[in-house]
């Protein structure tokens, strides 16, 4: 995967909108690693993440013409589709989820206890993502982790507490403080 400027991605999406199969392949080559990483983080399951990635590119193939109207940076638009399709996968496999979250919990518990922050990756990140990245790096890593997870997996306070095996009050206060700091920081970027 390479770092290519937004305008190259936009022009690829424009070409996909006019049924250019080569452009779809180009877009896949440049973004699949990044998008798969996201799908993997949402689902925690390789197979589901691959299904989400497949559905994402089929959706892009069908709806690329709508991209411009979204006024979004290309990776933000693609990321939103991946997250939605990955959340679909999670819902679809809800029965198996109970058993799956055990594994996720272990990984997360390590992340939350350790000093090392879950590394954020800024390859292909849009300017707006850089702003959020700046502000997220100022949070304590456990706050950053619960805020990110709440968003990525669309979890309520209660579900977060359950998945992370933390008291509800703790999760609530981490989220509240995390969001307060994020709000103060993001205000600088207007």
């Amino acid at each position, binding site marked *: *995967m390479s770092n290519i400027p937004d305008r190259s991605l936009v022009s690829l999406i424009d070409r996909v909108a006019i*049924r250019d*199969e080569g452009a*779809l*392949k180009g877009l*896949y080559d440049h973004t*699949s*690693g*990044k998008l*798969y*990483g*996201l799908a*993997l*983080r949402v689902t925690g399951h*390789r197979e589901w*993440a*691959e299904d989400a*990635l*497949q559905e994402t*590119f*089929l959706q892009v*193939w069908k709806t690329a013409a709508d991209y411009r109207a979204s006024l*979004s940076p290309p*990776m*933000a638009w693609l*990321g*939103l589709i*991946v*997250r939605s399709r990955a959340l679909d996968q999670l819902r679809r496999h809800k029965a198996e989820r109970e058993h799956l979250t055990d594994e996720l919990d272990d990984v997360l518990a390590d992340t939350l206890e350790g000093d090392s922050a879950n*590394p*954020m*990756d*800024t*390859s*292909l*990140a*849009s300017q*707006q*993502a850089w*702003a*959020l*990245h700046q502000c*997220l790096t100022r949070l304590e890593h456990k706050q950053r982790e619960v*805020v*990110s997870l*709440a*968003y*990525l997996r*669309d*979890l*309520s*306070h209660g579900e977060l507490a359950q998945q992370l095996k933390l008291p509800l009050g703790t999760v609530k206060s981490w*989220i509240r403080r995390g*969001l*307060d700091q*994020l*709000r103060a920081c*993001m205000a600088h970027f207007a």
Partner: protein
Amino acid sequence: MDLHRHPELLDRLAAAYALGTLRGGARRRFEALAREHAPVRAAALLWQSRLVSVNELQTPAQPAPAVWTRIDNLVRAERDRTAMDAARQDSPAVKGGWWRSLPLWRGASAAGALSAVVAVVTAVGLRDDLGSQIGQLQAQLATTPQVRYVAVLNDEQSSAAMLVTFDPKQQRLTLQRVSGFQEAADKSLQLWALPPGGAPRSLGVLSNEQLLQLAAGERDVSGVPALAISLEPLGGVPSERGPTGPVLFKGALIQKML
């Protein structure tokens, strides 16, 4: 309360709304306010567009190469289907429903019956020993497939393309290609049952032979009014996904009473 007159509270609620942690009644009240007041809506949209960047900050990983192959197959199938739909719209041919195969099937059946009679008459005429001939015919009958269901699948021009018969004794479907159609090397034909009010159910993927058989139980075909054949990526697609490629041939499945 005029939420839009309290910027600090509005910002906090909009951030929690976009994060997804604002739930239940509070979420519904916020949504109602956003519909009524543009500043509330704007605050929500601002936070949604800020937080969407969380998606962009995740560590990349390498998907299996098969993922692209699957996408490519499905995109090609979709393109073929679109091309075929366009061709159909240009074609002056009258749109044919599946019932169009009925007269055809009757014709085929009558021709079959006639040829059987001719065969018997000829055989009897040629041989004097009627007794041994009857014994031979009885033996033949025992091994002859007991056809219970028949379908002639037609293409869009209502030309017969595939003859399908089901033999409950042998538990199998026999398919005979009757037109010159041959799928490309990277494609497979897949046979589907079209149950009333239900999703298509795969009955199997066809090999590229002229005459082929698929294992099937009576439950797979009883009560199914029609069969269809779609063009799929090589090896076919899982049944639960339904046909992804264009439907090439289709026809009524008829239970034989004779």
